[in-house]
Structures are given as C-alpha cells and as structure tokens.
C-alpha cells in the first residue's frame, strides 16, 4: 500500500503551526507535501478561485490549495475559532475549511480549536491522527513531542530577537502577520529591501507570545484577536530599543484595519504603514522604504 500523503498549503495557518505539524507527522511517520513558496502561478490560480473582495492572504491561500489538490490524499486545514474568549481569530480562520470544501473536490483533514468550549489543540491533533487510523496513545505521544520541540524552536526565536535588539544598526520592528511577512510575494520583498539598506529588522511575532499577549493591554484594552494582540504587545515590549516600526498588512485585512489605526494613534515612533494590495506595485514600496529609512536615520542623528 502506498503511504498516505498529506498536503499542507504554505499559507495562513501554516505559519502558526509549521514546526508542530512537521514534528508531529514526522513522529507518526506520515509523508507531508508542502506547497512551494508563493509564485506568480499560485497567485493567479488563487485569484480564479476567490472573489475580489477577499483579502490578499486568503487569495494566496486558495492558490496553494489549488496547487496541492491532486498531489496528495488529504489537505490539512485547521479551523481556529479561539484560544479563550479574549483570544479570538479573524473570521477567515473560521471559514477556511468550509470555503475550501465548497470550492475544491478534495479530502480535507480538519481539526477545530475552540478553547472556550474545551476543544483544545491536543484534541485536534489526536483527532487527525485517529482519522488516519493511528492509535490514540501514539498520537498523544507524538503531539507531546511535537509541542515540546516547537516550544524549543520558539524559545530560540525569542532569544534570537533579543540578540537582534542589541545590534548597533538601525532597528525596525516589523508588525505584521507571519503569513504576510514571510510570504514570498508580500513581506519578503520588504525584508530584502531592508537588508539592502543595512537595517536590522525584528519580527514582532517571534517574541514569546505569553509575554506579548499580556503587554497588549497597555496599547488596547478591548482587543480580542489573539494574533493581533501578540503583535502589538511586542511594540510595548521593545518600545525603547527600536528606531521605527513598519506595519505590513494585506488588503483589506479586517483586524488590521482597526488595530493598526488605533496603535498608530497611540505611539510616538516613526512608522510606515504598508498595505500590500497590488502585487505589481513593489517598486513603489521600495521607494517608500528608502525614504522611511532616511527619516529614521535623520531622527537618530539629531538625538
């Protein structure tokens, strides 16, 4: 019998679970196919399967699913509703699964995280393992392993970030969801430009989320989106160690439209608000980045 292959779209939820998934399936000895980095074809396919009001990230996601649809047995799509009532997600995380089910004829491996109703991540992971015919005890062990390993990686990232903060270069905090910042077409061009300009960039989401989540209340007392909380908490965390902030969001991101606007009103740093919509307008982004770096350089020279 052929080994079961599980497809993982390299988009939205992947960036929150990547290590956990890979360690988990590695332990269970299941083959995983990861869709390639976002390319022109994936984006165009994504546009074909979505309507034009959907956010850019969702369009890219659908492109990745389209790439995987006939290359694997199952596609892994979690549904994440909340990690507690004050830690919700954007509604796209709620509808991803049903959206894909209705758009493509594919088998989907799905788990649901609703912590407010005690549907935990652990239960979710065990559920997918079980539906593949693996014993609960084995799944449980694999999950514990995956969790411990990914926690270790997270700690490493946190330490790396702290190290970056000590750098003597100009330091810019990147505030944006990982699925945007790390996407080949959305955030990576920005990071590359910053590197060219000799800037130390620090990803807000790489900080320990248990610290940043709590700090968010200092900027916004009513916020209830988990991932946005962690991003703005990081601003508070590194406040006095950075020279500027770049907000990166995809058009028209729901939470970002409100949260970024509120945060911008409350901070007094140099900032740049990049909303990536049209993927062909990256040249414009480069110019904006250059002038932004000029501004913070001048500001630093003066002080």
């Amino acid at each position: 019998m052929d080994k079961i292959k599980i497809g993982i779209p390299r988009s939205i939820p992947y960036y929150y679970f990547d290590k956990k998934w890979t360690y988990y399936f590695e332990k269970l000895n299941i083959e995983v196919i990861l869709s390639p980095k976002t390319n022109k074809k994936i984006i165009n396919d994504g546009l074909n399967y979505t309507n034009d009001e959907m956010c850019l990230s969702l369009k890219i996601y659908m492109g990745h699913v389209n790439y995987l649809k006939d290359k694997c047995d199952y596609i892994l799509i979690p549904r994440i509703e909340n990690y507690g009532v004050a830690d919700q997600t954007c509604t796209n995380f709620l509808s991803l699964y049903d959206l894909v089910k209705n758009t493509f004829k594919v088998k989907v491996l799905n788990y649901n995280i609703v912590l407010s109703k005690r549907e935990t991540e652990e239960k979710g992971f065990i559920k997918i393992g079980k539906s593949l015919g693996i014993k609960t005890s084995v799944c449980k062990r694999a999950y514990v392993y995956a969790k411990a390993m990914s926690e270790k990686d997270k700690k490493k990232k946190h330490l790396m970030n702290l190290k970056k903060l000590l750098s003597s270069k100009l330091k810019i905090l990147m505030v944006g969801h990982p699925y945007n910042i790390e996407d080949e077409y959305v955030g990576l061009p920005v990071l590359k430009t910053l590197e060219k300009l000799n800037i130390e960039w620090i990803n807000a989401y790489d900080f320990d989320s248990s610290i940043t989540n709590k700090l968010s209340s200092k900027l916004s007392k009513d916020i209830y989106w988990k991932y946005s909380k962690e991003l703005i908490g990081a601003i508070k965390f590194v406040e006095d160690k950075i020279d500027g902030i770049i907000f990166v969001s995809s058009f028209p991101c729901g939470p970002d439209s409100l949260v970024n606007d509120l945060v911008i009103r409350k901070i007094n740093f140099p900032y740049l608000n990049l909303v990536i919509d049209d993927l062909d307008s990256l040249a414009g982004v480069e110019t904006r980045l250059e002038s932004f770096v000029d501004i913070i350089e001048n500001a630093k020279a003066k002080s």
Partner: protein
Amino acid sequence: MKTQKQNPNITIAFPRMGNYDIPAKYLLTNIFDVNIEDIPIITNKTIELGTRYSPEFVCTPFKYTIGTLIESLENGANVLIQAGGGCRYGYYSELQEQILKDMGYKFQFINLMSKGQKSLKKIYQELKKVDSNFNPIKALYYLIITIKMVKYMDKVDDYIRENIGFEVVPNSFINLQKEMLNSFYRSKTNIDLYFKYKFYFKKIKKIKINKPSNHLKIGLIGELYTLMEPFSNYELERELASYGMSIKRYTNVYYLLFQKGRMANKYVKYAKEYITYKMGADAADNIGRTKYLCKHNYDGIIHIKSTFCTPEIGAMPIISKICQEHKMPLLFFSFDANTSEVGIKTRVEAFYDMIEGRRQ
C-alpha cells in the same frame, strides 16, 4: 419639549440603526435622570464626515456610526454609548473613542461590550458612572418592556415587509407604523404596551392591499447593519416593494438578541451538506437561510452587505454554489459610502425582469 432633569449637564447619544433608536431612547429616558439626545437621521453629510475620519479599509458601518456620533457631539451630547460583537463590530468602540478624542471632543464613552463579549458586571459599572442614582431594579423593569417593544416592532415590521408592495393607498403602512411607534414610546407598563400592539397590529392588518395570490417572493439576507439601516442600503426594501414583491427578511434585533444563540447551530445543521462550522457573525445563518429559501419556492434571493464585511465575503461563494445547484436567481450587493444609486436601481430592475420572466 425637554423636561427639567436632575443632571442637566449630561446628554446621552448613541449610533442609529433603523427604527431601533425609539426603544433605545425609551429605555434610556426611563432609567436615567439625564437628557437623551434625539439621534440625528443619517444623511449624506453623516457619511461624508464618517468617511473622512475612518481608517481606510474598515467596513462601512464604522463610517456610518462614527458619522452619527460626531453629529451628536456637535449637537451637545457628552456621553456616547456603543455596543456590538460577533466580528469586527465588537472592536469599533475603542477605536471610535480614540478617534473622537483625537479630534478634540470631550465626552465619556460607554462600551457595553468587553473584549467582544457581553459582561453584565461591566455594563452595570459603566451605567453607574453616568448616573449615580442608577437603579438596577427599575432598569430591569424597563428593560423587559423595551425587549417586548422590540419584539412587537419586529413582528409588525415582518408583516409590513411582506405586504407593503401591494398597498392601495401609498404610504398607508409607513404612516400607521410611525403612529404606532410614537404610541409605543409613551407606554408606561407592559400591559399598556401589549394592548397598543394588539390595537395597531389589527389596524395595520386591515389596511387595504391588492395582493395577487401568485405574487413574487424575495428573500433578503446578508450583513446585519446594512440590512437594518435603510439609509445604508439606499432604501433597497422600498425599491423592491415598488415592483410588487413581498420581502422576507430574517435578521432583526430581536433575532440577534434572543434567537440567534439557538438558531445559529440549527442553521449549520440544516445546511450540513455545505458547511460544518459557524463562520463568524451571521455568515452560517445566511447559508442556512439560502438553502431554506431555495427549498421553499421563493423567486429570488438578494444578499446585501457593506464593503469589506469579512464574514459575509467568506459565505458568498457558498451561497452562490447553493443557488446554482437549485437554479435560484441570486443578486449580490456590496454597499459603500459612494455606491451609485442609479446602478442599484438598474440592477434591481434587471433582476426583477429575470425572475418575472422565469415565472412565465
């Protein structure tokens, strides 16, 4: 006429949605000893103001509500109330408060929701801040009457919506409804309100209509604010009624407050061949309703929402799929501050021609 209140310095205002400013005002006047402002009707100026001070790609209800709040502040309000939840709506308050403060207004902002959830304790604390004489027992008494009022309003509204397209004397429904709401506003007890409701509902049912037995039936679904605030959907319901169609709309305040909790899961179960989970706000409800309307001999479905409404955008592909499978005519509207009214009229006309043609 304003009577002398104990705290003449306090004036409360809140954003407007349809006719619901009447029960809201009723509740506030009866539980507080302060001035309640007449909420200004939404005009083009409101939306212009709202758009100018809103973030770039926020959904349209944000712009309408902040526009109304600015106008209210200009008229002298100094306590603002905002509530909402389910999607982005729950986060409006904090940003709106900040924007209005940055504009230089001095006011107290009361957010009835905390982190997108209802919290009775918080509501009590906030209300106590407005009026130190706030009495929760009295408030509960009037709250019950207000809830009943909303229920009666919505019931009458449903009837009117189904029949207004067939009235013989123009505006007879609207005028009587206005009269009814005015008399509701003056009622003091539950029983008083009940008799008024019975009286007016009887009267409204007696209004002469010319309703053919094979009239066209339309289901109206979509995002809640756009559905319930006629200005934000460019009076779409009136436009549809002028073609002689009866309109079925599910979303109203009574549904959202008291039926949604129970019905939302039922809708998901009902449409289980399409969806497995709730999708935020009213998205799953609308998918269930789409299937129901398809199965029950309706002639067409119109889905309306404000631009950038994320939950509904996620539901739209599934709604079109259901309609395609059932060969049901479907029309999408996405309303923004600068949607062209002529465009709406043309599309409604074309849609009417199509469903009319299908009948024959």
